[in-house]
Protein backbone atom coordinates (compact mmCIF):
# COMPACT_ATOMS: atom_id res chain seq x y z
CA UNK A 1 0.00 0.00 0.00
CA UNK A 2 1.28 3.43 -0.90
CA UNK A 3 -0.68 5.36 1.70
CA UNK A 4 1.28 6.95 4.50
CA UNK A 5 1.11 5.11 7.83
CA UNK A 6 -1.80 6.16 10.03
CA UNK A 7 0.15 5.89 13.23
CA UNK A 8 3.88 6.51 13.48
CA UNK A 9 5.66 6.31 16.82
CA UNK A 10 9.35 7.09 17.08
CA UNK A 11 11.50 6.52 20.16
CA UNK A 12 8.57 7.31 22.40
CA UNK A 13 9.37 7.46 26.10
CA UNK A 14 6.82 8.04 28.83
CA UNK A 15 7.90 8.33 32.44
CA UNK A 16 5.71 8.72 35.48
CA UNK A 17 8.13 10.02 38.07
CA UNK A 18 10.94 7.45 38.27
CA UNK A 19 8.97 4.79 36.47
CA UNK A 20 9.52 4.41 32.77
CA UNK A 21 6.17 3.16 31.54
CA UNK A 22 7.39 3.24 27.95
CA UNK A 23 11.02 3.13 26.98
CA UNK A 24 11.86 3.96 23.38
CA UNK A 25 8.98 2.56 21.37
CA UNK A 26 9.12 2.52 17.56
CA UNK A 27 5.94 1.48 15.85
CA UNK A 28 4.15 2.09 12.58
CA UNK A 29 0.65 1.06 11.66
CA UNK A 30 -0.33 1.55 8.02
CA UNK A 31 -3.95 1.80 6.88
CA UNK A 32 -5.64 -1.55 6.44
CA UNK A 33 -3.46 -3.32 8.95
CA UNK A 34 -4.49 -4.92 12.20
CA UNK A 35 -1.75 -4.78 14.79
CA UNK A 36 -2.13 -6.66 18.02
CA UNK A 37 -0.53 -5.26 21.13
CA UNK A 38 0.28 -7.92 23.68
CA UNK A 39 2.00 -7.77 27.02
CA UNK A 40 1.55 -8.56 30.67
CA UNK A 41 -0.43 -6.27 32.92
CA UNK A 42 1.61 -3.15 33.43
CA UNK A 43 3.74 -3.73 30.34
CA UNK A 44 2.73 -0.31 29.02
CA UNK A 45 -0.10 -1.18 26.66
CA UNK A 46 -2.57 1.27 28.13
CA UNK A 47 0.06 4.00 28.31
CA UNK A 48 0.88 3.49 24.64
CA UNK A 49 -2.81 3.71 23.76
CA UNK A 50 -3.12 6.92 25.77
CA UNK A 51 -0.21 8.44 23.87
CA UNK A 52 -1.84 7.57 20.57
CA UNK A 53 -5.14 9.07 21.66
CA UNK A 54 -3.43 12.21 22.91
CA UNK A 55 -4.63 11.60 26.46
CA UNK A 56 -1.05 11.69 27.68
CA UNK A 57 2.02 13.34 26.23
CA UNK A 58 5.24 11.45 25.64
CA UNK A 59 8.17 12.48 27.83
CA UNK A 60 10.31 12.33 24.71
CA UNK A 61 10.07 11.00 21.19
CA UNK A 62 7.51 11.76 18.52
CA UNK A 63 4.09 10.45 17.71
CA UNK A 64 2.11 11.18 14.62
CA UNK A 65 -1.48 10.11 14.16
CA UNK A 66 -2.92 10.90 10.74
CA UNK A 67 -0.04 13.32 10.31
CA UNK A 68 -0.62 15.25 13.51
CA UNK A 69 0.87 15.17 16.96
CA UNK A 70 -1.80 14.08 19.43
CA UNK A 71 -2.08 16.65 22.16
CA UNK A 72 -2.01 19.74 19.96
CA UNK A 73 -5.24 21.68 19.98
CA UNK A 74 -5.89 20.88 16.33
CA UNK A 75 -5.93 17.22 17.22
CA UNK A 76 -9.25 17.59 19.02
CA UNK A 77 -11.08 17.73 15.71
CA UNK A 78 -9.05 14.87 14.24
CA UNK A 79 -10.33 12.65 17.02
CA UNK A 80 -13.52 12.32 15.02
CA UNK A 81 -11.64 9.82 12.88
CA UNK A 82 -10.55 7.70 15.80
CA UNK A 83 -12.71 4.99 17.30
CA UNK A 84 -11.69 3.91 20.76
CA UNK A 85 -12.90 1.12 22.98
CA UNK A 86 -11.53 1.45 26.52
CA UNK A 87 -10.53 -1.56 28.55
CA UNK A 88 -13.69 -1.54 30.60
CA UNK A 89 -16.50 -0.18 28.53
CA UNK A 90 -18.73 1.38 31.16
CA UNK A 91 -21.70 3.49 30.29
CA UNK A 92 -24.18 5.38 32.37
CA UNK A 93 -26.82 2.87 33.39
CA UNK A 94 -29.66 5.35 33.40
CA UNK A 95 -29.54 5.98 29.66
CA UNK A 96 -30.73 3.55 27.01
CA UNK A 97 -28.34 2.01 24.52
CA UNK A 98 -29.68 4.29 21.82
CA UNK A 99 -29.37 7.42 23.94
CA UNK A 100 -25.80 6.45 24.78
CA UNK A 101 -24.75 6.03 21.17
CA UNK A 102 -26.68 9.16 20.17
CA UNK A 103 -24.70 11.15 22.71
CA UNK A 104 -21.39 9.86 21.39
CA UNK A 105 -22.45 10.29 17.77
CA UNK A 106 -23.34 13.92 18.43
CA UNK A 107 -19.95 14.53 20.00
CA UNK A 108 -18.36 13.12 16.87
CA UNK A 109 -20.65 15.17 14.70
CA UNK A 110 -21.74 11.92 13.06
CA UNK A 111 -25.25 11.34 11.71
CA UNK A 112 -27.49 9.70 14.30
CA UNK A 113 -29.68 7.96 11.71
CA UNK A 114 -27.06 5.36 10.93
CA UNK A 115 -27.03 4.01 14.46
CA UNK A 116 -29.46 1.17 13.77
CA UNK A 117 -26.92 -0.36 11.46
CA UNK A 118 -24.34 -0.31 14.23
CA UNK A 119 -26.76 -1.91 16.68
CA UNK A 120 -27.44 -4.54 14.05
CA UNK A 121 -23.74 -5.22 13.62
CA UNK A 122 -23.23 -5.97 17.29
CA UNK A 123 -26.59 -7.73 17.62
CA UNK A 124 -28.10 -5.19 19.98
CA UNK A 125 -30.90 -3.83 17.81
CA UNK A 126 -33.62 -5.32 19.99
CA UNK A 127 -32.01 -4.07 23.19
CA UNK A 128 -31.28 -0.57 21.85
CA UNK A 129 -34.29 0.94 23.59
CA UNK A 130 -33.52 -0.59 26.96
CA UNK A 131 -31.55 1.05 29.74
CA UNK A 132 -27.88 0.12 29.82
CA UNK A 133 -28.27 -0.91 33.46
CA UNK A 134 -30.31 -3.91 32.29
CA UNK A 135 -27.56 -5.06 29.91
CA UNK A 136 -25.37 -8.06 30.61
CA UNK A 137 -21.59 -7.58 30.66
CA UNK A 138 -21.31 -8.99 27.17
CA UNK A 139 -23.95 -6.61 25.89
CA UNK A 140 -22.16 -3.64 27.42
CA UNK A 141 -18.96 -4.74 25.78
CA UNK A 142 -20.72 -4.98 22.42
CA UNK A 143 -22.25 -1.56 22.97
CA UNK A 144 -18.70 -0.37 23.53
CA UNK A 145 -17.62 -1.87 20.24
CA UNK A 146 -20.54 -0.19 18.46
CA UNK A 147 -19.53 3.07 20.12
CA UNK A 148 -16.02 2.76 18.69
CA UNK A 149 -17.43 2.31 15.20
CA UNK A 150 -19.45 5.53 15.21
CA UNK A 151 -18.70 7.84 12.32
CA UNK A 152 -16.59 5.41 10.27
CA UNK A 153 -13.26 6.09 11.97
CA UNK A 154 -10.00 5.76 10.06
CA UNK A 155 -8.25 4.40 13.11
CA UNK A 156 -9.64 1.89 15.55
CA UNK A 157 -8.02 1.46 18.94
CA UNK A 158 -9.57 -1.45 20.77
CA UNK A 159 -8.40 -2.28 24.27
CA UNK A 160 -9.39 -5.87 24.96
CA UNK A 161 -12.41 -5.88 22.66
CA UNK A 162 -13.39 -9.48 23.31
CA UNK A 163 -13.26 -9.67 27.13
CA UNK A 164 -16.43 -11.16 28.47
CA UNK A 165 -17.81 -12.10 25.07
CA UNK A 166 -19.08 -15.52 24.12
CA UNK A 167 -17.42 -17.24 21.14
CA UNK A 168 -20.22 -16.14 18.83
CA UNK A 169 -19.83 -12.48 19.72
CA UNK A 170 -16.06 -12.76 19.52
CA UNK A 171 -16.33 -14.02 15.98
CA UNK A 172 -18.68 -11.15 15.22
CA UNK A 173 -16.22 -8.58 16.58
CA UNK A 174 -13.38 -10.05 14.53
CA UNK A 175 -15.60 -10.07 11.46
CA UNK A 176 -16.24 -6.36 11.99
CA UNK A 177 -12.52 -5.70 12.37
CA UNK A 178 -11.84 -7.66 9.18
CA UNK A 179 -14.46 -5.64 7.32
CA UNK A 180 -13.07 -2.31 8.52
CA UNK A 181 -9.56 -3.39 7.64
CA UNK A 182 -10.72 -4.03 4.10
CA UNK A 183 -11.93 -0.41 4.09
CA UNK A 184 -8.40 0.73 4.87
CA UNK A 185 -8.86 1.32 8.58
CA UNK A 186 -5.79 0.93 10.75
CA UNK A 187 -6.60 -1.24 13.75
CA UNK A 188 -4.66 -1.40 16.99
CA UNK A 189 -5.92 -4.15 19.19
CA UNK A 190 -4.71 -5.09 22.62
CA UNK A 191 -5.58 -8.46 23.98
CA UNK A 192 -4.76 -11.11 26.52
CA UNK A 193 -6.52 -13.78 24.51
CA UNK A 194 -3.37 -14.60 22.57
CA UNK A 195 -4.65 -17.71 20.87
CA UNK A 196 -7.50 -15.68 19.39
CA UNK A 197 -5.12 -13.32 17.63
CA UNK A 198 -3.39 -16.11 15.75
CA UNK A 199 -5.30 -15.79 12.48
CA UNK A 200 -6.59 -12.27 12.99
CA UNK A 201 -3.66 -9.96 13.55
CA UNK A 202 -1.36 -9.03 10.68
CA UNK A 203 1.41 -8.17 13.07
CA UNK A 204 1.95 -8.60 16.76
CA UNK A 205 3.82 -6.12 18.91
CA UNK A 206 5.09 -7.60 22.16
CA UNK A 207 5.57 -5.12 24.97
CA UNK A 208 7.51 -6.07 28.05
CA UNK A 209 8.38 -3.68 30.88
CA UNK A 210 7.81 -0.70 28.63
CA UNK A 211 10.04 -1.98 25.84
CA UNK A 212 9.04 -3.34 22.49
CA UNK A 213 10.45 -6.87 22.44
CA UNK A 214 9.28 -7.75 18.98
CA UNK A 215 6.99 -6.52 16.27
CA UNK A 216 6.35 -8.81 13.33
CA UNK A 217 3.90 -11.21 11.78
CA UNK A 218 3.23 -14.38 13.73
CA UNK A 219 5.21 -16.71 11.38
CA UNK A 220 8.16 -14.33 11.60
CA UNK A 221 7.92 -14.18 15.35
CA UNK A 222 7.81 -17.94 15.46
CA UNK A 223 10.93 -18.16 13.38
CA UNK A 224 12.86 -15.56 15.36
CA UNK A 225 11.82 -16.95 18.71
CA UNK A 226 13.62 -20.15 17.74
CA UNK A 227 10.71 -22.24 18.85
CA UNK A 228 10.55 -25.66 17.27
CA UNK A 229 7.29 -27.40 16.42
CA UNK A 230 6.60 -30.62 18.25
CA UNK A 231 5.72 -33.91 16.62
CA UNK A 232 3.53 -36.03 18.88
CA UNK A 233 3.05 -39.70 18.25
CA UNK A 234 0.67 -41.91 20.17
CA UNK A 235 1.31 -45.60 19.99
CA UNK A 236 1.36 -48.84 21.99
CA UNK A 237 4.21 -50.04 24.24
CA UNK A 238 6.03 -52.13 21.62
CA UNK A 239 5.80 -49.54 18.91
CA UNK A 240 7.06 -46.94 21.32
CA UNK A 241 10.19 -48.85 22.16
CA UNK A 242 10.75 -49.43 18.44
CA UNK A 243 10.54 -45.69 17.89
CA UNK A 244 12.87 -45.03 20.78
CA UNK A 245 15.39 -47.46 19.35
CA UNK A 246 15.16 -45.89 15.91
CA UNK A 247 15.63 -42.34 17.18
CA UNK A 248 18.08 -43.28 19.95
CA UNK A 249 20.81 -41.25 18.25
CA UNK A 250 18.78 -38.05 18.13
CA UNK A 251 16.38 -38.07 21.07
CA UNK A 252 16.68 -38.88 24.74
CA UNK A 253 14.71 -41.88 26.06
CA UNK A 254 12.59 -39.49 28.12
CA UNK A 255 10.96 -38.32 24.89
CA UNK A 256 9.17 -41.64 24.72
CA UNK A 257 7.07 -42.14 27.83
CA UNK A 258 3.49 -43.03 28.66
CA UNK A 259 2.71 -44.10 25.14
CA UNK A 260 3.37 -40.63 23.70
CA UNK A 261 6.48 -39.59 21.88
CA UNK A 262 7.21 -35.86 21.80
CA UNK A 263 9.85 -35.03 19.22
CA UNK A 264 11.17 -31.60 18.40
CA UNK A 265 10.88 -31.15 14.70
CA UNK A 266 12.49 -28.10 13.02
CA UNK A 267 10.24 -26.75 10.26
CA UNK A 268 12.56 -27.85 7.43
CA UNK A 269 12.70 -31.45 8.73
CA UNK A 270 8.95 -31.91 8.98
CA UNK A 271 8.45 -34.00 5.85
CA UNK A 272 11.65 -35.96 6.23
CA UNK A 273 10.72 -37.00 9.73
CA UNK A 274 7.19 -37.90 8.83
CA UNK A 275 8.40 -40.07 5.95
CA UNK A 276 10.95 -41.69 8.18
CA UNK A 277 8.30 -42.61 10.74
CA UNK A 278 5.92 -43.94 8.13
CA UNK A 279 8.68 -46.03 6.61
CA UNK A 280 9.13 -47.80 9.93
CA UNK A 281 5.75 -49.40 9.25
CA UNK A 282 4.64 -49.27 12.88
CA UNK A 283 1.00 -49.32 13.94
CA UNK A 284 0.56 -45.77 15.18
CA UNK A 285 -2.61 -44.68 16.99
CA UNK A 286 -2.31 -40.99 16.30
CA UNK A 287 0.17 -38.43 15.03
CA UNK A 288 0.05 -34.64 15.22
CA UNK A 289 2.36 -31.74 14.61
CA UNK A 290 1.98 -28.82 17.00
CA UNK A 291 3.29 -25.43 15.91
CA UNK A 292 4.29 -23.24 18.86
CA UNK A 293 1.26 -21.10 19.62
CA UNK A 294 1.28 -17.40 20.29
CA UNK A 295 1.34 -17.97 24.00
CA UNK A 296 4.59 -19.89 23.75
CA UNK A 297 6.04 -17.28 21.42
CA UNK A 298 4.99 -14.56 23.84
CA UNK A 299 6.59 -16.43 26.71
CA UNK A 300 9.79 -16.82 24.74
CA UNK A 301 9.96 -13.08 24.08
CA UNK A 302 9.15 -12.10 27.62
CA UNK A 303 11.53 -14.62 29.24
CA UNK A 304 8.88 -16.56 31.01
CA UNK A 305 7.89 -20.15 30.85
CA UNK A 306 4.41 -20.61 29.48
CA UNK A 307 1.73 -21.19 32.05
CA UNK A 308 0.63 -24.79 31.94
Amino acid at each position, binding site marked *: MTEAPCIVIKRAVKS*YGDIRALDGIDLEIPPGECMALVGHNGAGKTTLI*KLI*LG*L*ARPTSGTISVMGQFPGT*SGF*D*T*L*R*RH*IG*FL*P*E*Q*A*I*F*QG*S*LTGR*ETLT*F*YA*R*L*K*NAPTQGLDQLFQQVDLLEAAGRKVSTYSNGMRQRLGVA*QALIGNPRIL*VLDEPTTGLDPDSRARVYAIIEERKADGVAVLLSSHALTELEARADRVAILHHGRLRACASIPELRKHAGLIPELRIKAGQEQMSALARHFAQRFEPCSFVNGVAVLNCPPRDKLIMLREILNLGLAIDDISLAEPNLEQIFAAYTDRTPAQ
Partner: protein
Amino acid sequence: MKQIFFIALKEVQDGMRNRWVVLIALAMAAFALILALLGSVPTGMTKISSLAVTVVSLASLSIFFIPLIALLLTYDSIVGEAERGTLVLLLSYPIARWQVIVGKFCGAFILLSLAIALGYGSAGIAISLTAETAFTEQAWSSFSKLLLSSVLLGAVFLSLGFLISTSLRERGTAAAAAIGSWLFFVLLYDMGLLGLLASDAGKTIGTDTLIGLLLANPADAYRMFNLVGSDEIAILSGMAGLSLERQIPAMVPIAVMVAWVALPLASACAIFQRRQV
Protein backbone atom coordinates in the same frame (compact mmCIF):
# COMPACT_ATOMS: atom_id res chain seq x y z
CA MET B 1 -20.24 25.37 21.52
CA LYS B 2 -22.21 22.38 20.29
CA GLN B 3 -20.04 20.04 22.35
CA ILE B 4 -20.82 22.00 25.53
CA PHE B 5 -24.50 21.78 24.74
CA PHE B 6 -24.39 18.01 24.22
CA ILE B 7 -22.53 17.43 27.48
CA ALA B 8 -24.99 19.66 29.35
CA LEU B 9 -27.91 17.89 27.69
CA LYS B 10 -26.63 14.52 28.83
CA GLU B 11 -26.16 15.73 32.40
CA VAL B 12 -29.71 17.06 32.45
CA GLN B 13 -31.05 13.89 30.88
CA ASP B 14 -29.27 11.83 33.50
CA GLY B 15 -30.38 14.05 36.37
CA MET B 16 -33.98 13.83 35.24
CA ARG B 17 -33.73 10.10 34.72
CA ASN B 18 -32.45 9.32 38.19
CA ARG B 19 -35.13 11.62 39.67
CA TRP B 20 -32.54 13.82 41.28
CA VAL B 21 -34.39 17.01 40.42
CA VAL B 22 -37.71 15.71 41.66
CA LEU B 23 -36.25 14.57 44.97
CA ILE B 24 -34.42 17.80 45.69
CA ALA B 25 -37.38 19.92 44.62
CA LEU B 26 -39.67 17.93 46.90
CA ALA B 27 -37.26 18.27 49.80
CA MET B 28 -36.97 22.01 49.22
CA ALA B 29 -40.71 22.49 48.90
CA ALA B 30 -41.27 20.50 52.07
CA PHE B 31 -38.73 22.53 54.03
CA ALA B 32 -40.07 25.78 52.64
CA LEU B 33 -43.65 24.91 53.51
CA ILE B 34 -42.77 23.82 57.02
CA LEU B 35 -40.82 27.02 57.59
CA ALA B 36 -43.62 29.06 56.11
CA LEU B 37 -46.26 27.48 58.29
CA LEU B 38 -44.15 27.91 61.41
CA GLY B 39 -43.12 31.36 60.32
CA SER B 40 -46.65 32.65 59.80
CA VAL B 41 -47.42 32.22 63.49
CA PRO B 42 -45.45 35.23 64.81
CA THR B 43 -46.70 37.60 62.09
CA GLY B 44 -50.12 37.46 63.69
CA MET B 45 -51.58 40.91 63.50
CA THR B 46 -48.63 42.82 62.06
CA LYS B 47 -48.58 44.35 58.63
CA ILE B 48 -45.68 42.23 57.51
CA SER B 49 -46.54 40.01 54.57
CA SER B 50 -46.32 36.31 55.18
CA LEU B 51 -44.09 35.93 52.17
CA ALA B 52 -41.57 38.32 53.72
CA VAL B 53 -41.33 36.04 56.71
CA THR B 54 -40.87 33.11 54.41
CA VAL B 55 -38.10 34.89 52.54
CA VAL B 56 -36.17 35.27 55.78
CA SER B 57 -36.67 31.65 56.75
CA LEU B 58 -35.91 30.39 53.28
CA ALA B 59 -32.76 32.46 52.95
CA SER B 60 -31.48 31.04 56.22
CA LEU B 61 -32.38 27.55 55.09
CA SER B 62 -30.83 28.01 51.67
CA ILE B 63 -27.50 28.97 53.13
CA PHE B 64 -27.24 25.49 54.61
CA PHE B 65 -29.11 23.46 52.09
CA ILE B 66 -28.17 24.77 48.66
CA PRO B 67 -24.36 24.67 49.07
CA LEU B 68 -24.65 21.12 50.34
CA ILE B 69 -26.69 19.80 47.43
CA ALA B 70 -24.63 21.76 44.93
CA LEU B 71 -21.41 20.23 46.27
CA LEU B 72 -22.95 16.77 46.36
CA LEU B 73 -24.06 17.20 42.76
CA THR B 74 -20.60 18.00 41.42
CA TYR B 75 -17.84 16.75 43.70
CA ASP B 76 -18.05 13.38 41.93
CA SER B 77 -18.47 14.57 38.36
CA ILE B 78 -14.85 14.31 37.19
CA VAL B 79 -13.18 12.14 39.81
CA GLY B 80 -16.08 9.69 39.66
CA GLU B 81 -15.93 9.40 35.89
CA ALA B 82 -12.18 8.93 36.14
CA GLU B 83 -12.63 6.10 38.62
CA ARG B 84 -15.39 4.44 36.66
CA GLY B 85 -13.30 4.66 33.50
CA THR B 86 -15.74 6.71 31.44
CA LEU B 87 -13.54 9.79 31.46
CA VAL B 88 -10.88 8.29 29.22
CA LEU B 89 -13.53 7.42 26.67
CA LEU B 90 -15.09 10.86 26.79
CA LEU B 91 -11.74 12.59 26.34
CA SER B 92 -10.92 10.40 23.35
CA TYR B 93 -13.76 12.20 21.57
CA PRO B 94 -13.35 15.47 19.68
CA ILE B 95 -13.90 17.66 22.69
CA ALA B 96 -11.61 19.99 24.62
CA ARG B 97 -11.26 19.44 28.31
CA TRP B 98 -12.58 22.84 29.29
CA GLN B 99 -15.68 22.08 27.24
CA VAL B 100 -16.28 19.01 29.39
CA ILE B 101 -16.15 21.13 32.56
CA VAL B 102 -18.26 23.96 31.21
CA GLY B 103 -20.79 21.55 29.73
CA LYS B 104 -21.11 19.61 32.95
CA PHE B 105 -21.38 22.85 34.88
CA CYS B 106 -24.19 24.08 32.64
CA GLY B 107 -26.03 20.77 33.02
CA ALA B 108 -25.70 20.77 36.80
CA PHE B 109 -26.70 24.43 36.90
CA ILE B 110 -29.88 23.74 34.94
CA LEU B 111 -30.77 20.84 37.23
CA LEU B 112 -30.15 22.79 40.40
CA SER B 113 -31.99 25.88 39.15
CA LEU B 114 -34.91 23.73 38.18
CA ALA B 115 -35.02 22.09 41.61
CA ILE B 116 -34.80 25.48 43.36
CA ALA B 117 -37.44 27.06 41.14
CA LEU B 118 -39.81 24.12 41.54
CA GLY B 119 -39.26 23.70 45.26
CA TYR B 120 -39.29 27.30 46.42
CA GLY B 121 -41.65 28.47 43.71
CA SER B 122 -44.34 26.01 44.65
CA ALA B 123 -43.92 26.85 48.32
CA GLY B 124 -44.06 30.57 47.59
CA ILE B 125 -47.27 30.24 45.63
CA ALA B 126 -48.85 28.00 48.27
CA ILE B 127 -48.02 30.48 51.03
CA SER B 128 -49.26 33.55 49.25
CA LEU B 129 -52.50 31.83 48.30
CA THR B 130 -53.28 30.83 51.87
CA ALA B 131 -52.15 34.09 53.49
CA GLU B 132 -54.43 36.94 54.55
CA THR B 133 -52.43 39.55 52.69
CA ALA B 134 -53.54 39.97 49.10
CA PHE B 135 -51.64 37.98 46.50
CA THR B 136 -50.31 41.04 44.69
CA GLU B 137 -49.23 42.82 47.86
CA GLN B 138 -46.87 40.09 48.90
CA ALA B 139 -43.13 40.67 49.02
CA TRP B 140 -42.70 39.32 45.52
CA SER B 141 -39.65 41.35 44.66
CA SER B 142 -37.84 40.01 47.70
CA PHE B 143 -39.02 36.54 46.84
CA SER B 144 -37.79 36.70 43.26
CA LYS B 145 -34.51 38.13 44.49
CA LEU B 146 -34.30 35.16 46.81
CA LEU B 147 -34.90 32.74 43.97
CA LEU B 148 -32.32 34.33 41.69
CA SER B 149 -29.67 34.68 44.35
CA SER B 150 -30.28 31.12 45.53
CA VAL B 151 -29.57 29.94 42.01
CA LEU B 152 -26.40 32.02 42.05
CA LEU B 153 -25.40 30.62 45.43
CA GLY B 154 -25.94 27.16 43.96
CA ALA B 155 -23.69 28.05 41.03
CA VAL B 156 -20.91 29.12 43.43
CA PHE B 157 -20.86 25.75 45.12
CA LEU B 158 -21.29 23.82 41.89
CA SER B 159 -18.17 25.60 40.74
CA LEU B 160 -16.33 24.76 43.96
CA GLY B 161 -17.46 21.17 43.53
CA PHE B 162 -15.80 21.06 40.11
CA LEU B 163 -12.63 22.48 41.56
CA ILE B 164 -12.62 19.70 44.16
CA SER B 165 -13.49 17.06 41.59
CA THR B 166 -10.71 18.02 39.18
CA SER B 167 -7.98 18.49 41.80
CA LEU B 168 -8.39 15.27 43.75
CA ARG B 169 -7.66 11.78 42.55
CA GLU B 170 -10.01 9.74 44.70
CA ARG B 171 -13.73 9.89 45.22
CA GLY B 172 -13.41 9.41 48.96
CA THR B 173 -11.11 12.39 49.44
CA ALA B 174 -13.27 14.45 47.10
CA ALA B 175 -16.33 13.68 49.23
CA ALA B 176 -14.44 14.64 52.36
CA ALA B 177 -13.26 17.86 50.73
CA ALA B 178 -16.82 18.67 49.67
CA ILE B 179 -18.15 18.24 53.19
CA GLY B 180 -15.15 20.11 54.58
CA SER B 181 -15.63 23.11 52.33
CA TRP B 182 -19.33 23.12 53.11
CA LEU B 183 -18.57 23.21 56.84
CA PHE B 184 -16.02 25.94 56.32
CA PHE B 185 -18.12 28.32 54.25
CA VAL B 186 -21.42 27.73 55.96
CA LEU B 187 -20.54 27.23 59.62
CA LEU B 188 -16.90 27.66 60.59
CA TYR B 189 -16.32 30.93 58.77
CA ASP B 190 -19.08 32.73 60.64
CA MET B 191 -18.15 31.15 63.93
CA GLY B 192 -14.57 32.23 63.45
CA LEU B 193 -15.68 35.70 62.58
CA LEU B 194 -17.87 35.85 65.65
CA GLY B 195 -15.04 34.68 67.84
CA LEU B 196 -12.76 37.28 66.31
CA LEU B 197 -15.28 40.04 66.91
CA ALA B 198 -15.87 38.97 70.51
CA SER B 199 -12.19 38.83 71.37
CA ASP B 200 -11.47 42.08 69.53
CA ALA B 201 -14.38 43.89 71.23
CA GLY B 202 -14.54 46.58 68.53
CA LYS B 203 -10.97 47.81 69.00
CA THR B 204 -9.41 47.15 65.64
CA ILE B 205 -12.11 45.57 63.51
CA GLY B 206 -14.43 48.28 62.31
CA THR B 207 -17.67 47.91 60.44
CA ASP B 208 -15.90 48.20 57.09
CA THR B 209 -13.59 45.33 57.83
CA LEU B 210 -16.47 43.27 59.14
CA ILE B 211 -18.53 43.87 56.02
CA GLY B 212 -15.49 43.10 53.89
CA LEU B 213 -14.92 39.84 55.72
CA LEU B 214 -18.57 38.93 55.44
CA LEU B 215 -18.66 39.72 51.74
CA ALA B 216 -15.59 37.61 51.07
CA ASN B 217 -17.56 34.49 51.92
CA PRO B 218 -20.11 33.71 49.19
CA ALA B 219 -22.58 32.31 51.71
CA ASP B 220 -22.46 35.51 53.71
CA ALA B 221 -22.67 37.58 50.56
CA TYR B 222 -25.87 35.72 49.82
CA ARG B 223 -27.14 36.43 53.32
CA MET B 224 -26.33 40.12 52.98
CA PHE B 225 -28.03 40.33 49.62
CA ASN B 226 -31.26 38.75 50.81
CA LEU B 227 -31.53 39.87 54.38
CA VAL B 228 -30.32 43.43 54.10
CA GLY B 229 -32.15 44.03 50.85
CA SER B 230 -35.33 45.57 52.20
CA ASP B 231 -35.98 47.29 55.53
CA GLU B 232 -38.90 45.04 56.33
CA ILE B 233 -36.77 41.95 55.89
CA ALA B 234 -33.69 43.41 57.51
CA ILE B 235 -35.63 44.10 60.67
CA LEU B 236 -37.10 40.62 60.65
CA SER B 237 -33.78 38.94 60.15
CA GLY B 238 -31.89 40.90 62.73
CA MET B 239 -29.49 42.22 60.12
CA ALA B 240 -30.86 45.75 60.49
CA GLY B 241 -27.88 46.87 62.52
CA LEU B 242 -25.52 46.20 59.67
CA SER B 243 -27.75 47.57 56.97
CA LEU B 244 -28.42 50.83 58.76
CA GLU B 245 -24.78 51.66 59.30
CA ARG B 246 -23.60 50.95 55.80
CA GLN B 247 -25.72 50.86 52.72
CA ILE B 248 -24.10 48.25 50.49
CA PRO B 249 -25.23 48.40 46.92
CA ALA B 250 -27.01 45.17 45.99
CA MET B 251 -24.57 44.71 43.15
CA VAL B 252 -21.63 44.12 45.50
CA PRO B 253 -22.72 40.79 46.98
CA ILE B 254 -23.87 39.70 43.52
CA ALA B 255 -20.48 40.58 42.06
CA VAL B 256 -18.79 38.65 44.87
CA MET B 257 -20.85 35.59 44.12
CA VAL B 258 -20.27 35.83 40.37
CA ALA B 259 -16.54 35.99 41.08
CA TRP B 260 -16.91 32.92 43.28
CA VAL B 261 -18.50 31.13 40.34
CA ALA B 262 -15.97 32.22 37.73
CA LEU B 263 -12.70 31.77 39.61
CA PRO B 264 -13.11 28.19 40.88
CA LEU B 265 -14.55 27.15 37.52
CA ALA B 266 -11.65 28.67 35.61
CA SER B 267 -9.19 27.01 38.01
CA ALA B 268 -11.01 23.72 37.59
CA CYS B 269 -10.59 24.00 33.79
CA ALA B 270 -6.89 24.83 34.16
CA ILE B 271 -6.28 21.96 36.58
CA PHE B 272 -8.26 19.51 34.46
CA GLN B 273 -6.17 20.48 31.44
CA ARG B 274 -3.04 19.25 33.23
CA ARG B 275 -4.63 16.26 34.92
CA GLN B 276 -3.31 12.85 33.99
CA VAL B 277 -6.07 10.52 32.96
